[in-house]
């Protein structure tokens, strides 16, 4: 009975979402603010009702009610409580409900937070968000109902997919949805700006933190996916250029471009239409990603079960949103003449333009790579696959270009720059990067791509260090304190810029991790019998023993490896091959030994049941931890950005740029 109550709550939420659509329209037409208040109540109501729906479903999991089809499919009485709850988003239906719930949460928070400060935006915001919520609730209730019962009720559930029984995989979908859905807030503000014709910087400023938060969630979600793939899938990589990974990566790329180009709109009041385009594109790509993943249109490891009915509905919905948003953009922007005015070919503004160009090309690369097989199929031409080799050759150079721009953009002045200034700013970083790269060459890094990548990293790093040095010296002198305290003052004077640079630093760390863990990865796959030894680089692995092991809901085999480095024993590693008895699924459990910020990584994907031999996959992944460290730095810096306190010192900044000609004026210039 209680399950039906949850179902009823979601149905009511659907009805309220219709109120959320109609009330603001009436309010705008009649000019009666009461209607907007009604809409606000509806938004809060939707959130409460969806929360009830979610809570009841979770209750169903905990109460082990397997008469609910979805719970039956994604849970089992033997599961730990943690994974019982996580079962909620372990499949298509429940994860959609989570999507809708997060959307309702965002919408409510945005309504409450901006109610006073952005009254004019409210009806549009609620309208747009309600349309999206409405679409998703329709999909949930009519085509993917998680509250559906089965009769007769099975005694026990089919179990959550063992691959998903992992902490990283539990947080991965919610984070990803926080990111996808989070983009709907700046999107709604942009639509409000379009509808109301207030196309200034206001909407950009109001949503900056929302965008950073959505971006951070997306980054973390993608990162968690990679982390999970690395530890759980056992092939030693974190990114496979799988269509579903790409589906999450595309909105990320556009959101990143958007975060950058909005700065131009804030500071120089340019690129208005372009920013609207970017955020609409970013959110559209979130929706398109949802379509790609859930319609089964692309073959991928992650796909949900395909159902053309669902696919058609989602496609219809996505098409509606695309037409609504891009259509409005086209109609409105046709009335907007380009307002771009620049003083110099080389300036911060123009570098932002190139940044955007590179991001867009990166997007096109991923987009085309993902959809090309589909295109070939539809055209009934030869069926093709596009995979890592394509992205490595086409995407990577573009990505490296973006990293390079990280060393240029933040240091070049707004408006105008002179050749001497350029020389002062960039000749030294280029030379120092050359020297450092040469040093790496001497130390044994000989692959040209790795060296090119390192040169770019060193270039950006030197630019960052130089700039930090300059501004902390400036503030130390000004406030008569030490260099370190000067740095703190510099940070406080413009936390937004500084956190941005910190994020760049995190990217650099990650890039180094990616360069080494991909290009200098050593890997072997072979069959080993107990007693066999294998060498990989200067490590030696000896398979000491193979034996059976058992867990709560699985049984399997374990291998014991003695690991030697240069003849010295350094570790024992115990990879496992498990077989989950309920779901009848085998998994490989990776054994990882951390070594100088890299990993030794062993899996046994296949074992003879009598323990006479095992198929062994051994990897050395140097500096792979830097990938996660980089992600960590980016996370912390983004949080610092979201929770920063801006100081307003306009007068001061003007003085700065006048008094100290050596300092690039923008470097010390506060946000506003």
């Amino acid at each position, binding site marked *: 009975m209680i399950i039906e109550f949850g179902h009823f709550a979601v149905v009511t939420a659907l009805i309220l979402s219709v109120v959320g659509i109609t009330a603001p329209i009436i309010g705008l037409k009649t000019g009666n603010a009461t209607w907007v208040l009604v809409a606000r109540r509806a938004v809060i109501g939707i959130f409460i009702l969806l929360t009830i729906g979610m809570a009841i479903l979770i209750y169903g999991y905990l109460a082990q009610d397997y008469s609910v089809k979805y719970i039956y499919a994604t849970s089992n009485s033997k599961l730990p409580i943690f994974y019982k709850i996580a079962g909620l988003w372990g499949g298509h239906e429940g994860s959609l409900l989570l999507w809708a719930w997060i959307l309702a949460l965002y919408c409510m928070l945005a309504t409450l937070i901006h109610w006073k400060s952005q009254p004019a935006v409210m009806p549009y915001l609620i309208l747009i968000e309600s349309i999206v919520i409405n679409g998703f609730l329709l999909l949930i209730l009519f085509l993917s109902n998680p509250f559906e019962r089965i009769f007769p009720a099975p005694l026990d559930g089919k179990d959550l997919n063992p691959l998903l029984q992992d902490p990283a995989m539990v947080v991965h979908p919610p984070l990803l949805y926080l990111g996808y859905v989070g983009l709907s807030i700046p999107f709604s503000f942009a639509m409000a700006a379009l509808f109301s014709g207030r196309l200034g910087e206001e909407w950009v400023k109001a949503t900056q933190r929302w965008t950073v938060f959505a971006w951070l969630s997306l980054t973390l979600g993608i990162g968690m996916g990679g982390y999970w793939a690395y530890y759980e899938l056992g092939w030693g990589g974190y990114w496979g250029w799988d269509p579903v990974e790409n589906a999450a990566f595309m909105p990320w790329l556009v959101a990143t471009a958007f975060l950058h180009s909005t700065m131009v709109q804030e500071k120089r009041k340019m690129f208005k239409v372009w920013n609207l385009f970017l955020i609409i594109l970013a959110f559209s790509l979130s929706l*398109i990603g949802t*379509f790609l993943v859930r*319609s*089964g*249109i*692309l*073959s991928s490891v992650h796909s949900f079960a395909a159902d*053309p009915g669902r*696919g*058609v509905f989602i*496609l219809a919905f*996505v*098409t509606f949103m*695309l*037409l609504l948003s*891009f259509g409005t953009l*086209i109609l409105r*922007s*046709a*009335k*907007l*003449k380009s307002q771009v005015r620049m003083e110099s070919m080389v300036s911060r503004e123009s570098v932002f333009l190139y940044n955007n160009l590179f991001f867009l090309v990166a997007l096109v690369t991923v987009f085309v790579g993902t*959809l090309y097989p*589909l*295109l070939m*199929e*539809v055209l009934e031409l*030869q*069926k093709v696959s596009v995979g890592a080799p394509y992205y490595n050759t086409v995407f990577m150079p573009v990505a490296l270009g973006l990293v390079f721009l990280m060393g240029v953009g933040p240091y070049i002045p707004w408006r105008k720059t002179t050749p001497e200034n350029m020389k002062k700013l960039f000749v030294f970083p280029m030379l120092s990067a050359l020297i450092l790269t040469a040093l790496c060459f001497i130390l044994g890094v000989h692959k040209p791509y790795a060296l090119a990548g390192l040169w770019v990293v060193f270039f950006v790093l030197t630019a960052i260090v130089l700039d930090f040095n300059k501004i902390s010296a400036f503030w130390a002198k000004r406030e008569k304190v030490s260099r370190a305290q000067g740095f703190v003052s510099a940070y406080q004077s413009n936390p937004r810029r500084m956190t941005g640079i910190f994020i760049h630093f995190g990217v650099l760390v990650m890039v180094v991790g990616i360069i080494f863990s991909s290009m200098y990865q050593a890997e072997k796959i072979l069959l080993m019998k107990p007693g066999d030894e294998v060498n990989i680089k200067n490590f030696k692995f000896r398979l000491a023993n193979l034996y059976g092991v058992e867990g709560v809901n699985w049984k399997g085999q374990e291998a014991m490896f003695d690991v030697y480095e240069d003849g010295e024993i350094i570790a024992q590693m115990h990879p496992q091959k498990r077989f989950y008895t309920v779901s009848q699924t085998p998994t490989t459990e990776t054994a990882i030994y951390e070594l100088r910020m890299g990993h030794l990584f062993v899996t046994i994907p296949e074992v003879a049941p009598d323990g006479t031999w095992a198929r062994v996959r051994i990897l050395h992944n140097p500096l792979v931890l830097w990938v996660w460290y980089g992600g960590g730095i980016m996370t912390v810096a983004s949080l610092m950005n979201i929770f920063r306190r801006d100081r307003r010192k306009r007068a001061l900044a003007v003085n700065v740029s006048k008094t100290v000609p050596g300092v690039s004026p923008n470097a010390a210039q506060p946000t506003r």
Partner: protein
Amino acid sequence: MKGFSIWHAFLLIGLLGLVMLFYQGLWGDPTALPPVIIEEAAAEVVAPDLYSGDEFRLSEHLGKVVVLNFWASWCLECKLEHKFLLAIQKRYENRPDFVMYGVNYQDKPHLAKAYLEEYGNNFAHVVDMKGKISIDYGVYGVPETFVIDKKGIIRHKQIGPILGDVYSNLLENVIDPLLNEPGLTS
């Protein structure tokens, strides 16, 4: 329309194209694969017989219509088509220019034998030891069936089980006409 630029047109066309692509794509099956090696010379098969271990060579059967059926004991759909395979063999067993072989795929000999015991058997089977044969024939999964003509050319590839219409089509439109074609030696 004033201010309507070429970029807007690009954008609209792009969106439209994308939606059409997605719509078309919905009706396709991303796992369906076009057959590749039809109308090409069949690769040589050298494999041990499942029971006797005697070496089977496809080239020794040049001049006959050869049916190669890839199957495994763990494959559910193989069980569905098995009685139709038996019927094919029964129908043509008196023809000297016809031969059918089962290719046991990713399987264990004792499981394969138990399977044949349970479901009946009236034709010979060979073992695909290291997947060499199945990869040579571009096999994705089982069951897959190939019909090779008297000149040693692959003329038909059936992905999935031979049942009902597929069965009668295979007999009437593939095997019968091929048997009526002149052989190599004539």
